[in-house]
């Protein structure tokens, strides 16, 4: 009986094995570096990672979880596309068929639905993490902007997918959501018309949302994620305290590089030539990073599977333009916005969200404080942390009110008193 490792070593040694894996199972630090650099999937990683970046408490794994959820969404989404026709006559029946006759159809739909909600949540939390650890400070300003773009795209992706089941929930959530877009001055109505392909949610709106959801936005997100990850590498890895790193004499990896000012796939920052030097406190990404990534993927998968096995994605009655539910609610992540709109369509629906978005984009360029990178809630950043926290708390409170405390005619209800329509 051979151990899996022995089987692996045997296979990697055959001609076929060698043609696939350029390096065998690494035995030395040099081998570990080579494994990372020579593999297509692994070369997205640095060959060596700083100890700080490996610590779970530095990142909570939120960016990676978001990426995993996006991959899960792509896979389940393609599976669902085989069973879906984007037309009002068929869409709802397709949902019923997924539930009742397609093998694993309901599980696939559940996984897609819950992953989508989790992704909105994780991308938002990831943004909060980067803020609270000062990760947007130079040289990573632009990557923060890319991240804000990805956050907005995540919301739009989820929103466009919301319409596709063509039930009451979908129809009225999109009606409410696109109405909010219509409040913008001058161009609002035009944007709404462009999105819907008409003045109300109908056949052309479904087709447009479908094309946006399965082609345009995923392609754009793939590009933006690639850019985001590339910038992480080029900006010197994850932010951490004490940048630029202290340089120490190169270990055995040094044999690869004798006349360059960078170590293996890792910029060594500084003004003096750093020949033969490496950043201190770094570990080979194989296996320290790769193992943690696999672990995080398993955890993500476990949560998604748990939700999908025990809770079905909602499906209400067939969409009926003549029967609005009362209240008609947008998807949950827009309910804070809808709550604001209830106070004032122009200020709540246009000015406040626009200002918030501009503030998010401009944040790394406005914040002149250089200290506090890589530390949670750094003392030097008390003002910034307080302001950001206020905004987050306000957003959460508004969303919770919109979700649980609003009943017919957007009147106040206690969640335990009456049956409140909670959109899923």
């Amino acid at each position, binding site marked *: 009986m051979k151990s899996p490792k022995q089987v692996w070593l045997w296979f990697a040694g055959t001609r076929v094995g060698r043609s696939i894996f350029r390096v065998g199972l690494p035995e030395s630090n040099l081998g570990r570096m080579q494994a990372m650099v020579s593999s297509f999937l692994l070369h997205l990683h640095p060959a060596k990672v700083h100890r700080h970046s490996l610590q779970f408490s530095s990142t909570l794994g939120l960016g990676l979880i978001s990426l995993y959820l996006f991959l899960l969404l792509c896979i389940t989404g393609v599976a669902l596309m085989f069973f879906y026709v984007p037309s009002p006559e068929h869409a709802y029946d397709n949902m019923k*068929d997924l539930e*009742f006759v397609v093998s694993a159809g309901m599980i696939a739909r559940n996984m897609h639905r819950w992953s989508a909600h989790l992704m909105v949540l994780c991308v938002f939390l990831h943004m909060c993490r980067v803020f609270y650890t000062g990760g947007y400070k130079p040289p990573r300003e632009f990557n923060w902007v890319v991240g804000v773009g990805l956050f907005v795209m995540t919301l739009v992706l989820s929103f466009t997918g919301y319409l596709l089941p063509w039930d*009451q929930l979908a129809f009225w959530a999109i009606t409410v959501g696109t109405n909010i877009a219509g409040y913008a001055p001058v161009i609002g109505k035009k944007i709404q018309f462009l999105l819907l392909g008409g003045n109300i949610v109908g056949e052309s709106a479904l087709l447009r949302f479908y094309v946006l959801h399965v082609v345009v936005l995923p392609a754009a997100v793939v590009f933006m994620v690639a850019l985001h990850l590339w910038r992480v590498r080029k900006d010197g890895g994850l932010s951490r305290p004490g940048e630029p790193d202290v340089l120490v004499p190169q270990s055995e990896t040094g044999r690869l590089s004798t006349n360059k000012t960078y170590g293996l796939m890792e910029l060594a920052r500084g003004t003096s030539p750093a020949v033969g030097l490496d950043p201190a406190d770094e570990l080979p990404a194989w296996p320290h990073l790769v193992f943690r990534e696999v*672990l995080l993927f*398993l955890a993500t998968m*476990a949560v998604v599977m748990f939700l999908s*096995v025990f809770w079905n994605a909602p*499906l209400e*009655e*067939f969409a009926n333009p003549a029967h609005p539910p009362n209240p008609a609610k947008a998807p949950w992540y827009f309910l804070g916005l809808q709550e604001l709109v209830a106070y004032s369509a122009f200020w709540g629906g246009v000015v406040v969200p626009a200002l918030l978005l501009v503030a998010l984009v401009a944040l790394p360029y406005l914040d002149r404080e250089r200290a506090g990178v890589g530390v949670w809630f750094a003392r030097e950043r008390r003002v910034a942390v307080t302001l950001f926290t206020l905004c987050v708390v306000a957003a959460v409170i508004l969303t919770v009110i919109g979700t649980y405390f609003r009943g017919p005619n957007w009147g106040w209800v206690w969640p335990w008193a009456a049956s409140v329509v909670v959109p899923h």
Partner: protein
Amino acid sequence: MDALKRFYPWFALLGLAVGGLVLAGYYKDEFREWKRWQRDYNAQELSRAATPEQKEQARALPVEIRQIVLPGLQRVDRCTTCHLAVEDPGYAGYRQPLAYHPSHAQHPFDKFGCTICHQGQGRATEREAAHGRVAHWEHPMLAMKYIEASCAKCHAATDLPRSPLLARGRALFDEQGCIGCHKLGGFGGNLGPELDRVGAKRSPEWLAKHFKSPAELVTGSSMPPVKRSDADVTALTLFMLGQTGERLTEYYVSMKTIPGPELGQRLFSQKGCIGCHTVGGKGGKVGPPLDDVTKRRAPDWIVKHFRDPASVSPETVMPKYNFTEPEIRALAAFLGSLTGADISAFMKIPSQASPIERGRAVYLKFGCGGCHGANGEGGVPNRNARANQQIPALTAANDVADVFLESFVTEGIPDPAKLDPNGPKPPIYMPAFGDKISEGELADLISYLRSLQPAPNEKP
């Protein structure tokens, strides 16, 4: 790597969790209720098999989703996934879901499926969902007590000898004068909501309760309660349930005319056959009398004659009517039923009725009885109206000149006199019928109203 050893338990735990959840998902997906019923059925078939070939067939029975795809009805009915024996009389008296469905010859399953009559959720393959008793499904299975309602989706309520409750409901609908306030099929008043899709919107329980006490379910409703027996309320409910406004494609619409004598009789009067032919001595003399035509001619000759009269009697002046084959069968059946019957027994010839009779028909047509009582006796409450807070009886017409009576009908009384001048407007008012009623109908209606007033010596 020793540094990673502390993660190994986590790795094992999460790996097991994901594996277990994948298995749980597979179990949920794979083991479905309907498979059990199919195995039961297959075992049943095997036990019934007598010959080796039958046994072979029974063993080869698959376990698979069965469905009837009905593009014309925009349905997919998977009911037969569990109800496997609906077409096998050998299963008569079996317990559901393996029971036989009696008498379906006129509505073959492959053309009609199940849910067009029974409702429920045809696409579903789980019991509660399929029977429509789950949240967010608007059409739960129709109780058998109301099943005749489904006939009305395709058939006229009065066509069918086998749906007496539906016909009773239709008759009550006319008698109660519902049409005075409600529109059905584009005809009727504006005081209440349209009823064309009411069967798709309301549950049987709601409708039955609403007939008995409308204001309890619809706040501020001014509809008078229907004071009838429970059986009548059920019939009315059933008729309402049939009004679903579903549009069926051509195949099913053509099936709605049952080629029986009733349809033949309707066609006979619609096409004006009586203009040239006599029945029971009445009618035109251009063509031969038709009372005994089925004795004189062979059935085949009659059918050919309806298709193209000149094909069997070259000298004929009778035009070719382009009847459909079901219509020809219906007309032939009707002619066969004549044999000397008195025409007035089955054909209403308007000119032969008296103006009062015709006026009574107009009274029913416009649903006047809904407010003024089945025979003009009044009595429907109208809050804050003068005259006893009731809609007035029509026996008071004697003091009013014809011209005023006519204007009441054509222009209506949008603002009836109030008991309390400062009180609210009475909820019901006399609508204007001017754009609906013809001059002849109006004259006949006035004759009928005059007939209601007491003779001068009975005057109080």
